[in-house]
């Protein structure tokens, strides 16, 4: 008996005469069958579908490249890992092994950094919500407290007075960098004098040690020049403090916000082609600092709280095709077992999706839906993919930032997270949820414990 030919769904595709269409310039079907030498098939066989996979090698190489971009241009550089971007302990520890401090924005994140073994003096405490208890702990641990508003400043002064400690503080500054929208809800404004006013309050009181200046101008920024403006404005504040109080500020913290390789929704060209590189951001920031009027005895430490640009590309989400269907207007739709519950960032990005097995070169324009019985559950509004069948596996790329913190336990449970180490060995770093992990937190009042139908 002769072997039968490989079957592929029949496809008919209308040829359009116009050039690039709304499905983008290029197809994305180049399959990705292995991650750091481990096959997607075996990862799904061992850890289930869907599953998040992180490449330790990619995290480290991305970090090293970023550090190099800054250290080759400026003498004193320190990264602080932005916990909210991905606070899985294994991930944080990779960054800490690489020398990163911790940047946290809540008591929960603060405690997590302490549990990981980060010395309190290497924790930067940002954000508008620090409780009195959080602040007392941070002050005792010598952490770097970045003040967001005056109420916080007054509370820190009260604690300092009462405990006779001298807290190490910075203020967060917001400013016009030519970027819209301007993030003016965090910190003190530069242009209207609030920031200068807050610095004077700190210096006059003598209760606090002003160690730094901080800003975070936005996220997924595409303009290196905005960072140059921000760095100049912080340096200007530092210079005015030095002039007026003969006090040197130890560090300038430029926050995070560099874009990753993802493609923003609505962008015409893929992010891999258009988004600025880390070198361009480094060049803008470091030249602005070097050219500023601020001339202390030692140049201020340049702190970076880079999040997504360091981890997005190290993260993959593996999933499977549940079904194919046709929409009423004839468009093809594919349903995956991965939805917006796990892939929060699909609200912002046209995530790159590739199959995990070989296909012919035929492609089809497809809407990708997740498994949720909810209209919002759209992973890609349109993408050109090969003829996927039920059970086929797909890889969603650049998902390392924010998804493993902003995911929702909604309709389904959260899946396993695996990290592939430098020797190509997978490790489970977060176990999948079970119905027990959810229900253990619930309590049913006695009068609601029985019913008859």
């Amino acid at each position: 008996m002769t072997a039968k030919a490989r079957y592929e769904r029949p496809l008919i595709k209308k040829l359009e005469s116009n050039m690039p269409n709304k499905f983008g310039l290029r197809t994305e079907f180049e399959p990705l069958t292995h991650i750091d030498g481990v096959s997607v098939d075996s990862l799904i066989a061992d850890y289930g579908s869907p599953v998040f996979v992180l490449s330790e090698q990619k995290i480290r190489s991305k970090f090293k490249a970023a550090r190099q971009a800054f250290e080759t241009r400026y003498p004193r550089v320190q990264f602080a890992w932005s916990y909210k971007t991905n606070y899985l302990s294994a991930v944080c520890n990779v960054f800490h092994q690489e020398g990163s401090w911790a940047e946290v924005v809540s008591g929960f994140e603060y405690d997590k950094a302490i549990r990981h073994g980060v010395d309190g003096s290497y924790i930067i405490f940002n954000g508008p919500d620090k409780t009195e208890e959080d602040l007392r702990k941070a002050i005792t641990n010598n952490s770097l407290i970045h003040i967001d508003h005056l109420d916080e400043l007054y509370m820190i002064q009260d604690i300092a007075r009462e405990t006779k400690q001298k807290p190490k503080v910075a203020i967060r500054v917001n400013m016009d960098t030519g970027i819209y929208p301007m993030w003016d809800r965090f910190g003190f404004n530069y242009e209207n004098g609030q920031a200068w006013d807050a610095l004077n309050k700190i210096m006059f009181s003598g209760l606090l040690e002003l160690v730094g200046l901080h800003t975070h101008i936005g996220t997924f920024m595409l303009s290196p020049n905005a960072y140059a403006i921000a760095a100049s404005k912080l340096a200007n504040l530092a210079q005015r403090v030095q002039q007026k109080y003969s006090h040197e500020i130890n560090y300038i913290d430029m926050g995070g916000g560099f874009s990753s390789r993802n493609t923003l929704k609505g962008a015409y060209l893929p992010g891999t082609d258009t988004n600025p590189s880390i070198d361009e951001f480094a060049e803008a920031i470091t030249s602005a600092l070097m050219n500023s009027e601020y001339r202390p005895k030692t140049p201020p430490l340049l702190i970076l709280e880079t999040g997504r640009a360091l981890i997005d590309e190290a993260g993959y989400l593996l999933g499977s095709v549940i079904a194919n269907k046709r929409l009423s207007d004839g468009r093809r739709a594919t349903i995956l077992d991965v939805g917006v519950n796990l892939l929060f960032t699909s609200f912002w990005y046209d995530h790159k999706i590739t199959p995990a097995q070989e296909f012919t070169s035929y492609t089809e324009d497809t809407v990708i839906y997740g498994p949720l019985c909810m209209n919002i559950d759209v992973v890609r509004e349109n993408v050109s993919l090969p003829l996927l069948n039920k059970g086929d596996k797909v890889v969603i790329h650049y998902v390392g930032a924010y998804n493993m913190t902003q995911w929702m336990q909604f309709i389904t449970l959260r899946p396993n997270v695996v990290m592939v180490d430098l020797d190509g060995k997978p490790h489970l770093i977060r176990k999948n949820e079970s119905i027990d992990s959810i229900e253990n937190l619930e309590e049913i009042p006695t009068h609601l414990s029985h019913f008859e139908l």
Partner: protein
Amino acid sequence: MKIKNNIAVSDNGFIFNPASGESFTVNQVGLDILNLLRKGEKQETIIQQLSEKYQADKAVIERDLSDFQAMIKQYHLIQNEE
């Protein structure tokens, strides 16, 4: 279901509809189906022939065939069936 007589189907899967000026491509399985439809083959015969040539369940072929037929109908490649 029958393909309109004036539709040109090339051996490598290029389809041209001279009435509308539209052109299409099909993959190999799609081409086989179009050729069988042009010969006026019945549904069961098409499924039987495809299942002999390809590695696939009849149920899968049947489902894909009806989807494909819906698409070629939408593209106005089908003779009016009264």
